[in-house]
Structure formats: structure tokens, C-alpha cells
């Protein structure tokens, strides 16, 4: 198959995306596909695609444009099939403010949160209600940009006085911010792949520095991972169920990663989902696949098969 692997782009996750994209391209070539990497950060995507005219676009872009439905809409417009979730659902899943609402409505547990919008601060005097956010979520809390990935711009806040600085830092990455209750427990990531979705074994994340921040994610050796996660049978089953519930609630397709934290009572809380999970050598999805006995090529093949199944069904 003639496959264009889209990777790179113009977001802070550009490097991470390129690293994953090169690995995926290699895996697809190993599978016998005519795969080539296209970097929308290097040349105009529409033009590159017209030239290449691929049968399928394999998406390994991260961050805005790549995960928020923008690229997906462009591909829909020019009539090219792509892996992963549909544009509208991407838009919801990528924006933590929207995704948490959607999860909550569907009865999927996600930590209590308060939304803060940059425009509301600037134009509506919302700064005066910052205290309400703390009342709602308690301390310590986690402050995240609503539309960004790889833990960029994420900070933990223990004292209310530190909240404004954390909000400003998060707003540097995104127009909106989620202030979320910090749940103490075991951090895990569950991959879901295929049509219908199937879960991969949960990967347990133990950052040596205590926080799974950007450095802990992308520095080899900075975080310990355990597959499957060291959870009891009940908690393991609960993680699987919750991952599938999030998948259904958000209308996800082909491949995704659900990040959650399992509290001391064994209850999983969904932190966020990624419609274009990282594919680098330190990424969680390939690790989960590995625990299921799947190499990178098999994982990519499963994603392509899933996309093909859907197209066949349409």
C-alpha cells in the first residue's frame, strides 16, 4: 500500500513526532508497504499529498493541528483516508476541557476540575473567581493547558498563592486551562487498538523524579515502566473497562492511549486520552503492545487493518 506517514509539524512536540514517525515509516516498510514520511513543517501538506497521492495517511503528528481535527479535516476534504479518530471527535478528545466534560457525561470517572479560559481572564475579570477553582478541586492540584500534550506547561500546585503563576504558564501553551484535583495513586496508560477496540496490557509509570513531566517522558532511563502494571486483578480489569468506556464515550478509532491514575482503592480515574499516541522508543503504546507480544510492525499493521476494515464497512 502507498502510505504517507505524517510526522513533524510545527508544534513543540515536533521532534517527538519525527522520532515516532521515522520508526513507524520503517515498520511499514518492513511490512512491505511503500511508506514515506511527510513533514507538514517542512513543506505544504496539501501539495505534498497531491504529489504523492497515497492510499492512506498514517498520522503520527502530535499537538495542535495534528491531534485537534485540523489535519483530519484537510484529509477529509481532499478525500484521503487516515488512521485514527474522526475530525470532530479529535477536536473533543484533544481539548481537555471538552474531553473531561464528555467523559463526565458518559459516567467515566475523571478527577474533579475547574476550567479557566484566557479570554475570560482578560475580558471578563475571571481572575476574581480563581479562589472558586481551588474550592472545587482542593489542594494540591494539577494545572494543565487544555490543548497541548507531552505534559508541556503542566505544573503541580500545593499552595493557592502559586496558582496564578501556574495558570499563566499553562496559558502559554493554550488558550484554556484545566485545574484538576491531584489524585494520589499509580499512574498507568492503556492502549486501545483496532475495530472494535481492544485494550493492550496496562503500562505502569514510575518516574524516578516523582513527576511524569516532559524530561521524565523523553529521557531514556528517567522513568521506570512495568508491563503489565503491578495492579490486582480487580484494578486491572477496572482499567480495561474504563479505557473502553473512554474510547466509546469519545468516539475514538483505530488507535489511542488512555492515561489514568489508579487510586489507593483501586479505582481508575481518566486523566486524558491521546488520539495520536507517541511512537518513540520511550513511548507507552509500543510498550503496551510489546507486553501483548506485538512488535512495532505488528502494532502498525493492526492500526492499518483497523482503518481498512472501517473503509470496507463504509
Amino acid at each position, binding site marked *: 500500500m502507498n502510505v504517507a506517514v505524517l510526522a513533524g509539524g510545527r508544534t513543540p512536540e515536533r521532534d517527538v513526532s519525527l522520532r515516532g514517525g521515522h520508526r513507524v515509516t520503517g515498520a511499514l516498510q518492513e511490512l512491505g508497504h511503500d511508506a514515506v514520511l511527510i513533514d507538514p513543517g517542512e513543506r505544504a501538506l496539501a501539495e505534498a499529498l497531491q504529489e504523492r497521492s497515497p492510499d492512506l495517511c498514517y498520522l503520527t503528528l502530535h499537538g495542535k493541528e495534528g491531534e485537534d481535527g485540523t489535519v483530519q479535516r484537510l484529509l477529509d476534504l481532499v478525500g484521503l483516508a487516515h488512521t485514527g479518530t474522526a475530525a470532530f471527535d479529535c477536536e473533543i478528545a484533544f481539548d481537555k476541557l471538552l474531553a473531561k466534560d464528555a467523559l463526565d457525561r458518559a459516567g467515566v470517572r475523571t478527577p474533579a476540575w475547574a476550567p479557566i479560559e484566557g479570554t475570560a481572564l482578560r475580558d471578563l475579570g475571571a*481572575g476574581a473567581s480563581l479562589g472558586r477553582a481551588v474550592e472545587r478541586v482542593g489542594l494540591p492540584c494539577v494545572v494543565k493547558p487544555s490543548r497541548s500534550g507531552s505534559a508541556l506547561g503542566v505544573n503541580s500546585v500545593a499552595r493557592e498563592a502559586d496558582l*496564578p*503563576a501556574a495558570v499563566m504558564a499553562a496559558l502559554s501553551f493554550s488558550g484554556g486551562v484545566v485545574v484538576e484535583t491531584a489524585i494520589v495513586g499509580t499512574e498507568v496508560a492503556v492502549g486501545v487498538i483496532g475495530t472494535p477496540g481492544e485494550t493492550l496490557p496496562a503500562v505502569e509509570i514510575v518516574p524516578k523524579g516523582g513527576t511524569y513531566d*516532559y524530561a521524565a517522558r*523523553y*529521557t531514556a532511563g528517567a522513568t521506570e515502566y512495568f508491563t503489565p502494571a503491578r495492579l490486582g486483578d480487580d484494578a486491572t480489569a477496572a482499567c480495561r473497562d474504563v479505557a473502553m468506556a473512554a474510547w466509546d464515550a469519545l468516539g475514538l478509532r483505530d488507535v489511542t492511549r488512555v492515561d489514568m491514575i489508579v487510586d489507593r482503592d483501586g479505582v481508575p480515574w481518566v486523566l486524558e486520552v491521546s488520539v495520536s499516541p507517541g511512537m518513540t522508543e520511550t513511548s507507552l503504546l509500543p*510498550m503496551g503492545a510489546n*507486553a501483548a507480544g506485538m512488535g512495532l510492525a505488528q502494532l502498525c499493521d493492526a492500526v492499518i487493518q483497523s482503518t481498512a476494515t472501517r473503509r470496507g464497512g463504509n
Partner: protein
Amino acid sequence: MAEFSIDRFVDLYAHRTSGMSASEVRALFAVASRPEVVSLAGGMPFVQALPTDDVLDAVRGVLAEHGAMSLQYGGGQGHLGLRERLAGLMAAENVEGDPEDMVITTGAQQALDLVGKIFIDPGDLIAVEAPAYVGALTAFGQYEPRYLQIEIDDDGMIVDQLEEALVRGERPKFVYTCPNFGNPGGVTLSYRRREQLVALCREAGIPIVEDNPYGMLRFEGSPLPALRTLDPENVIYLGTVSKVFSPGVRVGWALAEQSVVQRLVLAKEAADLCGSSFTMLVTERYFADEAQWRGNLATLTNIYRSRRDAMLDSIDEHFPDGAMWTNPAGGFYVWVTLPDWFDTRAMLAAAVERRVAYVPGTAFYPDGRGGNQMRLAFCYPPEDRIREGIARLGGLLEDEQALYRSLHP
């Protein structure tokens, strides 16, 4: 259950590598290097202004006359002809140096590494100006020192602070400073402070490491005597052709007491046997024609001067009240200090989103200070791009101020 091993050697690495990790800022710089972003971040010399014919002549001459030698290993101290030539280059700044007291290094950056290697044991105290060149901090950092940070003002390193520390009983192994249009401060150590620093260190028996990459890029005013000139015995002087010729040839040097040079040469040989014979010979040849290199340097200096002017003018126009900045009389950098609450590290993402980049101040301190500071480089983008970049940055600073006010009603 299996522990998934990303890096099977993770428990074997030396302690000194513990600080080497992926970073958000690095991720943002990957985007900042894109053409639509005005990068005021990197300190890249504008080598485009160098006539390639001049370099081509040098390369041709080297291959024609020293073909085999230029492709062969050389001595650890570096090619003698080049050392003689560089002694002439230093003389242009009134620094006297015997070629026997020099070692050629792979850029001055390697000289920093070698100085760290021969002086610093883990836990040793070294004194550095604050802010200091980030590359010096990373070079020294490998040898696990503790830092005595001496702040700077418009007259360079505040030597009184060093004196107070010595009175307290602190004994740094050496004092590191970049006295001419320093990176990142852009300020120049005043004559009075030069004398004070040299006297203080001589009295205390503490060597000074004088890093002088930018001294010949002076836009106005008269040059001040080098620390090395004031005290040849107690100063280890580091030079480089990176800013006056090309960083691509990787030619720098250290000039020091013979005893120090001998150790530096041994350390250099341990690191890489010898520098590149080829680029050493090309550099020697390039600097053989004094009228030519001086002409090229004058062209470069004029370019940098008008870029500096463009940057200072537009900062003046676009930066909000409360911002302060230095006024460099040469070199590559303007150093900006914003009100305390600014977090230039966090703000970098928003800046890149607006297509302008800078280096956050925290990079230039070993202890995380500098959160409200930033380094702006005027050396590479042309004037119109500098003005555009500063206008974008000024707009961002104003928006951040509005946001700050809204969060502190």
C-alpha cells in the same frame, strides 16, 4: 510482570550525566529554528558576510602547499604556524602571548572543558559571573563543581561581591569571566573593576579564566586592557576565531603559564589527540592577509552594529514599562530583565506561537535564578526581522502583563 527497560545501561552511567535530560525548552527550540520564527535565541555568527572566495583561496593554498600535512595528525599543542598567527591576532587587542604558551583547542569551548578537567574535582568551588555563558556552565558542570555566583551590573562583574566572599573564607579554584560584551549580559567589565579583580585574585592566589570571544567586535569606544595584559601570570586567556572568522573551523586557544599549558596539552591529547590539521592550516592562511581579514572583520562589525541599533531601538519602542535591558558596545547580545513575576521559561511557548524566540534567563545560572530574564541575540537576523521579532515580543509582554493583572485583581 516485567520491568520494561528503555535503557539497559541506566544504572551504569556516571553521576555527572544525571543532569543531561530532555527539556521543554529544547523541544520549543526545535520549532524556533523554523524559518517563519524570528530567532533571537541562538548566537550564530553571520558567516554569510564572509567572502567565500577568501576562504576558497585559503583552502586551495593549504591543499596545494601542505596537502599531506593538512590531512595528517598533528601535535597536541596545535600547529606552530597557527599559534604564531594567533599571537598576532591577540596583539591586535594588546594581548601579548608567546606561541609556546598557547594550546590550540576545538573552539574556545574545548578550552573551557579542559580548564574544568585540570582544575575541578567534584565538590570544588569555582566562581562564575552571574549570569554566565551557558556553555561554560555545562563544560564546568561535567566536573561537578559548586558555584560561587558573582552578579553583574552595567560595569560587568561586581568584584566587591567576590571580595566579600573571599573575606568570608570562600576559596574558589578559579574565577570565570567574559569581560568584553559578555555572553549573555552584553556588558563590559570597567577598567577600575579590571584592576580590582586582577589585584584581588593575585593576592588570593586564585587564577582568572578570561573568556574573550567578542573583544574584536567593538562598535564604539576604546578597547580596555585585557585581564591577561594586566596580569599575564595569573590569567588563563581563552580566544577563538569563531566570531571573527568562522565557528565552522572550530579553532580556539588557551594562553597561560607554561605549567598550565603543559597540563592543558596533555588533557587535550587525552580528549582528541590533536585538533584538525586541515582547519588549523586554513585558519592560519586566512589570517595571513591582514588587510583582508581586517576588512572582513570591519564589514562584520558594521553589520552587527546596525543590528544592535535596530534591536535597541525597537526594544525601546515596544517593550513595556518595567523592562530593563543592557546596552552592549559590541558582541552579540542584549540581556533583558523584566518585573519579578515574569516567567520567561513558561512564556517561551507563547513566544514561539507568535513566531519569535529568545533564550530564557534560567539557562545562564547554575541555580535556577533568572526566571524573569532573557537573552536576545542580534547577530543573525537582518534588521527588519529583528524589528519584527521585537515587536512580536513586545506585544506578548504587554499581553502577559494584562493577564497578570487579571489574575491579581
